[in-house]
């Protein structure tokens, strides 16, 4: 009886207390677990943050490197610019040279002081049966042109036809063909350049002038203060 009473007391009161305590304990334990997970998650976030920070730092370092590179390159560029400024005179010189070369090529119109050489066939000589002995051949023209070129003529024209660097001159009976156009005698060769130099070059003893006279060709050399020649592209 006593025992049963004790049992009933246990079943009624203690059992309920036990159940309540177990459920409370369960909830507390579970909450603890959850909180632990949360802490872990937070630490995950921290790790992520750490990695991002490291990435940021590395990026900043890269930025710094690139900036240094940029500065180095800018310094280099400044040096180049300084160089350029120093070399500008040289460039001007080169430009002038290019201009001269263009003049020689005939790509731009030329004008200025120069000389005019006229080659005329010699007087008819009844004693001679060979007309070749007194007419102007292309070789004479060649000689004159070569001499003029060598002595610094900027531009040369024959009977108004500007000579190119690759012009061809051919003897075609009584006429000569220059770049496909035929010209009869007399041949007027104009050259832009320093008059004194050109004339002295032509008239040098044993030079072109003498040879032409030797071949009984009438040669006249005039100085001309202003000669204008079109560019080859104008034709």
């Amino acid at each position, binding site marked *: 009886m006593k025992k049963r009473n004790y049992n009933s007391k246990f079943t009624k009161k203690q059992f309920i207390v036990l*159940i*309540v*305590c177990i*459920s409370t304990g*369960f*909830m*507390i*334990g579970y909450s*603890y677990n959850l909180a632990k997970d949360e802490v872990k998650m937070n630490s995950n976030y921290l790790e992520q943050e750490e990695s991002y920070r490291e990435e940021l730092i590395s990026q900043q370092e890269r930025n710094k490197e690139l900036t240094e590179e940029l500065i180095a390159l800018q310094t280099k560029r400044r040096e180049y610019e300084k160089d350029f400024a120093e070399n500008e005179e040289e460039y001007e010189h080169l430009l002038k040279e290019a201009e001269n070369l263009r003049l020689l090529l005939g790509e731009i119109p030329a004008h200025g002081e120069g000389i005019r050489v006229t080659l005329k066939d010699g007087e008819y000589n009844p004693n001679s049966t060979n007309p070749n002995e007194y007419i102007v051949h292309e070789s004479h023209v060649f000689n004159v042109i070569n001499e003029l070129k060598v002595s610094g003529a900027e531009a040369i024209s024959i009977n108004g036809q500007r000579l190119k660097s690759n012009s061809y001159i051919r003897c075609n009976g009584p006429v000569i063909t220059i770049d496909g156009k035929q010209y009869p005698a007399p041949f007027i060769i104009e050259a832009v350049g320093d008059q004194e130099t050109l004339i002295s070059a032509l008239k040098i003893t044993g030079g072109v002038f003498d040879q032409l006279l030797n071949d009984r060709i009438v040669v006249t050399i005039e100085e001309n203060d202003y000669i204008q020649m079109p560019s080859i592209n104008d034709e």
Partner: protein
Amino acid sequence: MWLPFLGLLLGLALGLLTDIQIPVVYENYLSIAVLAALDTIFGGIRANLQQVYDDKVFLSGFFFNIALAAGLAFLGVHLGVDLYLAAIFAFGVRLFQNIAVIRRILITKWEERHIKKGENTV
């Protein structure tokens, strides 16, 4: 006497060993439920000490408090008002009150015993 502690330990072990994941949204409910459970337990201890303990009140209080707290939190979440704070406040205040009462009762009991002891020795 040791049965409640045994139960508490058993529950703790179970809770620590379970590996069920619940959504983060429901964590509020759990914290309130824990508070309600603690409140009920301390209320039970107080009632026991004051000799007004009743099984029905204890058990119904335990589950009803938990359900009410969870319901409040649920309502709060859906209304956009932090209603679970009300539950936490109420349970917190009651928890402290209960503990204070328990402490006072225990102190008076201890003093009574001490006085009795003193009378005996004297």
